[in-house]
C-alpha cells in the first residue's frame, strides 16, 4: 500500500532545480559587453501597436495631439480596459500605417519639459490590504497591464481571470538580451519584492525562476527564487519551465512577466507614474558599439545603436535573432523588446561552398569543420540553402525544448488535422525559432506554428 504524501507546494521552502536537456545555444558572434551607457533623451519615442500580438488596436489620439507620459494612445478593441500609454510627453507627430491600415507606429516628439499623468501611490502597507479588483484596475488604468501575459498564446492576460500561477523569469538567454544581473541586484531587490507582493494579490502561486549560471542573482534573490532552470536556450522561457513542472491541463493558462517588466510594474505602483526608462543591449557582429544602454522606452533604433553599423547593408533585428523581428532603420523599439542586434545582410554567393570544409560556417549539425572549434561565428541573413521538401532528418525534434515533433506537427497542420496537431502539443510551442533555424530544407516551421496558433485562437473566440 502506498501513502500519498501531499504537501502543498508553496509550503516547501526548497528551490526546485530543473534541467532543460534540449534546445541549443547559437554560436553567434557579436555578444554585448557588460558596459552600461546612459543615453540622453532622444528626439522622439514611439509605440508599435503592430508588434503587440492578439490585439485589435483602436487609436485614441490623432496627429498633433499633445500627450503626457502615461496618457492612453490606443486601446484594445476587444477589451477597451486594456490601454497602451505614451512613453513620452510631447506631441503626436506621426502615425505610420502599413498595408491594410495596420498601425505601425505612433510617434511622439518629446517636449524639453515632459509632463506626467499622475496616479495614486500605493505603499507597501496599502498593498497588503488592497483587493484584487482594485489592484487590477490600477494596473489597467496605468497602462502597465500589458506586461502581464498569458500562456499558451502569449497574449495580454485576461483581467477577469485568476490564473493558476504567475511565472517571473529573471533571465535572458536568447542571443542577445540584457544581462539580468545589471538590473536585478541588491538595489532593486526591495522593488522586486514589492512587485512580487503585488503579483501575489493576483494569483496564489507566484513562481520566480532563473538560470543558475547567474550566481550573483541567485545569491541576492535566494529567498524569492522557487526554481532554477539550467540548460540551453530557450531555458529562460516561461513555457519551457511550465512544460517541465505542470501536472494538470488547467495549469496551461499560467501567466508570466519578465524581470525587467516586473520592475516597471512595481515602479508604477510605488511611484505613481509610468516609468519610461529601459535597459537595452545593442549587439551583433555589425554593430559598431556592442554594449548595454539605458534609454527611453520606445526609443529610435538609430538612437540606441549610437554609431553607424560596420557593414554597408545592416539589418536591425529587434528583440533577439531567433524571436525578433526586422526593424525599419528609422523605426523605434517596441514595448516588449529589450535588444537590437545588427547583422550583415546576405549579399554574396560564395563559390563552391559545397566542397569546402567550412571552418567559418555556423551549424548545429556536425557537417562543417566549424563544429570542431565551437567558437562564435559571424552570421548573416542568408537562409543558407535552397528550399526543399522535408527529408525527415529529425533535427527539429532534437532541438524542440517542449518535445513537439515539428516535422510531424507541420504535416498535420498542412492536412488540417486539428485534433492531431493539438495532441502533438502545438499550443505548448514556445516560439523559440530553433526548429526553423536547424531545418536543412529551410522550411518555415515556427512561422507556421505561430500562425496556426493564432488562427486556432481566432476560431475559439469567435
Amino acid at each position, binding site marked *: 500500500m502506498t501513502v500519498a504524501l501531499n504537501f502543498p507546494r508553496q509550503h516547501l521552502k526548497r528551490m526546485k532545480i530543473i534541467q532543460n536537456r534540449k534546445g541549443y545555444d547559437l554560436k553567434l558572434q557579436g555578444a554585448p559587453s557588460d558596459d552600461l551607457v546612459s543615453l540622453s533623451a532622444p528626439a522622439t519615442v514611439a509605440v508599435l501597436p503592430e508588434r503587440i500580438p492578439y490585439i485589435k488596436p483602436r487609436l485614441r489620439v490623432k496627429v498633433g495631439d499633445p500627450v503626457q507620459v502615461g496618457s492612453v494612445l490606443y486601446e484594445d478593441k476587444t477589451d477597451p480596459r486594456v490601454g497602451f500609454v505614451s512613453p513620452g510627453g510631447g506631441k503626436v507627430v506621426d502615425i505610420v500605417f502599413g498595408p491594410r491600415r495596420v498601425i505601425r507606429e505612433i510617434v511622439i516628439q518629446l517636449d524639453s519639459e515632459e509632463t506626467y499623468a499622475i496616479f495614486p501611490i500605493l505603499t507597501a502597507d496599502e498593498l497588503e490590504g488592497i483587493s484584487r479588483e482594485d489592484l487590477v484596475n490600477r494596473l489597467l488604468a496605468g497602462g502597465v497591464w500589458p506586461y502581464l501575459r498569458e500562456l499558451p498564446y502569449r497574449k495580454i492576460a485576461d483581467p477577469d481571470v485568476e490564473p493558476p500561477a504567475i511565472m517571473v523569469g529573471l533571465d535572458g538567454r536568447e542571443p542577445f538580451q540584457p544581462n539580468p544581473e545589471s538590473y536585478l541586484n541588491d538595489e532593486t531587490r526591495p522593488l522586486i519584492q514589492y512587485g512580487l507582493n503585488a503579483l501575489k494579490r493576483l494569483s496564489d502561486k507566484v513562481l520566480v525562476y532563473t538560470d543558475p549560471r547567474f550566481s550573483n542573482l541567485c545569491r541576492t534573490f535566494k529567498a524569492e527564487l522557487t526554481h532554477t532552470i539550467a540548460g540551453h536556450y530557450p531555458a529562460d522561457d516561461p513555457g519551457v519551465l511550465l512544460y517541465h513542472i505542470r501536472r494538470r491541463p488547467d495549469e*496551461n493558462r499560467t501567466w508570466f512577466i519578465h524581470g525587467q517588466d516586473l520592475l516597471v510594474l512595481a515602479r508604477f505602483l510605488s511611484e505613481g507614474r509610468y516609468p519610461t526608462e529601459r535597459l537595452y543591449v545593442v549587439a551583433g557582429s555589425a554593430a559598431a558599439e556592442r554594449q548595454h544602454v539605458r534609454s527611453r522606452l520606445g526609443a529610435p533604433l538609430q538612437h540606441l545603436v549610437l554609431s553607424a553599423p560596420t557593414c554597408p547593408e545592416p539589418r536591425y533585428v529587434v528583440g533577439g535573432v531567433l524571436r525578433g523581428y526586422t526593424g525599419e532603420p528609422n523605426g523605434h523599439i517596441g514595448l516588449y523588446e529589450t535588444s537590437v542586434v545588427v*547583422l550583415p545582410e546576405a549579399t554574396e554567393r*560564395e563559390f563552391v561552398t559545397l566542397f569546402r570544409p567550412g571552418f567559418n560556417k555556423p551549424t548545429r549539425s556536425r557537417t562543417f569543420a566549424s563544429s570542431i572549434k565551437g567558437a562564435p561565428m559571424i552570421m548573416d541573413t542568408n537562409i*543558407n540553402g535552397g528550399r526543399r521538401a522535408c527529408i*525527415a532528418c*529529425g533535427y527539429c525534434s532534437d532541438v524542440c525544448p517542449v*518535445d513537439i515533433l515539428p516535422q510531424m506537427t507541420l504535416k498535420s497542420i498542412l492536412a488540417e488535422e486539428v485534433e492531431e496537431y493539438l495532441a502533438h502539443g502545438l499550443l505548448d510551442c514556445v516560439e523559440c*525559432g530553433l526548429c526553423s533555424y536547424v531545418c536543412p530544407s529551410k522550411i518555415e516551421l515556427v*512561422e507556421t506554428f505561430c500562425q496556426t496558433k493564432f488562427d486556432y485562437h481566432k476560431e475559439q473566440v469567435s
Partner: protein
Amino acid sequence: MNPVRRFFDGLHPHVSPGGKYEKLYAFYESIETVFFAPLERTRRLPAVRDSLDVKRYMFLVIVALIPHLCFGIYNAGYFARMASGLSLAPVPVVLTGLWLVMPMVIVTYVVGFFWEILFATIRKHEISEGLFVTCMLFPLTLPPATPLWQVALGISFGIVIGKEIFGGTGRNFLNPALTARAFLYFAYPVSLSGDNVWSVLVGGAERYVDGYTAATPLSVAAATPDGQTVEAALEALGYSPLELFFGFYPGSVGGTTTFLSILGAIFMIVLGIASWRTILGGVLGVLATAYFLNFIAGPESMPFLSLKPYYHLLIGGSAFALVYMTTDPVSGTHMKGVKWFYGFMCGLLTVLIRVFNPAFPEGVGLAILFMNCFNPLLDYIEIKIRTRRRVPNV
C-alpha cells in the same frame, strides 16, 4: 569575375521564365547551386539560419559512397579479367572496371535526371538532392553484367513508381534505389541472378576460363551439401573471412565490401547524417537471428543454419544495405525510438530470407522494402505513445 559565374550568368536568361529553355530551370538551379551557394534572405523569424542545407547533407552521403564506387570499379574489372583469363595488372583492371561500371553510372544519372526534371518542371519545384544519392546507390547494387537498357528501365521504375507518383522526395515510403533494384530482379531474373551475372566476360572471351569459380559466397552458402560447414565450403573456394570482409569476390558493383561499409557508417554517424540506431539495430538483428538459428540447428538441418553469425555481415550486400539503404531518412522510420525496431527487423528478415527461402539468395533488399511499408505504422505507434504521456494543452 569568376569564369564559372560568367558561364552561369550567360545561361540564366535562357532558363528564366520566358527564355527558350525555361523548362530546364530546375536542372539549371540544381547544378548552379553546386557551384554557388544560394542567396535568399530571411524574411520571417528567425533572422539567421543554420549553414546546413539538403544539398550538403546529401553530398556528404555521396562522399561516403565514392570509395564504394572506386572499389566497385576495381573489383568488377578484376573479376571480369580473371574470368576471361586476362592479365590482372592494376592498370588494365581499372580500365576494364571503368569500361564496365561507368556506363551504368552515367545511364543511371542521365535517366534519373530526366524523370526528376520532368516531374520538377510539371510540379514547379526544385530538384531534390536525394536524387543524387539514389542514382549513386542504384548502380552499386547491380551485377556488373546488367545490360544498360535494364539499368535505364530500373532507375525509371525506381524514380517514377518508387518516388514521384507519391509526390516526390519526402513523400515516398519506399527506398527508390531498392525499388529499382527489386523491380529489375523480378522483371529480368535471368540477367540479374544466378552465378553467371557477377563476372563479365571481356576481351572476346566466350566462356569463363577453366577453374574460375563464379559462384558468389551467398550461393555457395545456400548450396553447401549436408555434412559440410559453410565456412569450409567458402574457404575451399578461396573466400577466407578476411577476403569476404574486404569484399574481394564477384558480386554487385559496390555492395560487397563490409570494410568500406563500416568506414562509411562511421563517417556518416560522426557527421550526424545517418541514424546509428538504425544501423546498430540492423547489425543486432542479423547477429541475434543468426545466433538463434545456430541454436535451433540440429545435426540433420542444412549447414546454412549453423553458419557463424558474423558471416552474415561479411557475405552479400547486407552490410552495404544496412548502412546506406536503411538509413534513408525518408523511407526509414521518422521517429527515433522505433528506429531500433526497424533496423532490427531488417536484419532479422535478411537472415530469414537468406536461409529459408531458396528463391532469393540475398534477402536484405526485400527485407528493407518490406519494413519500409511498416514504417508509417511504427511512427504512428511511437507518436501515440508520446502524445499520451503529454499533459494535454487544448
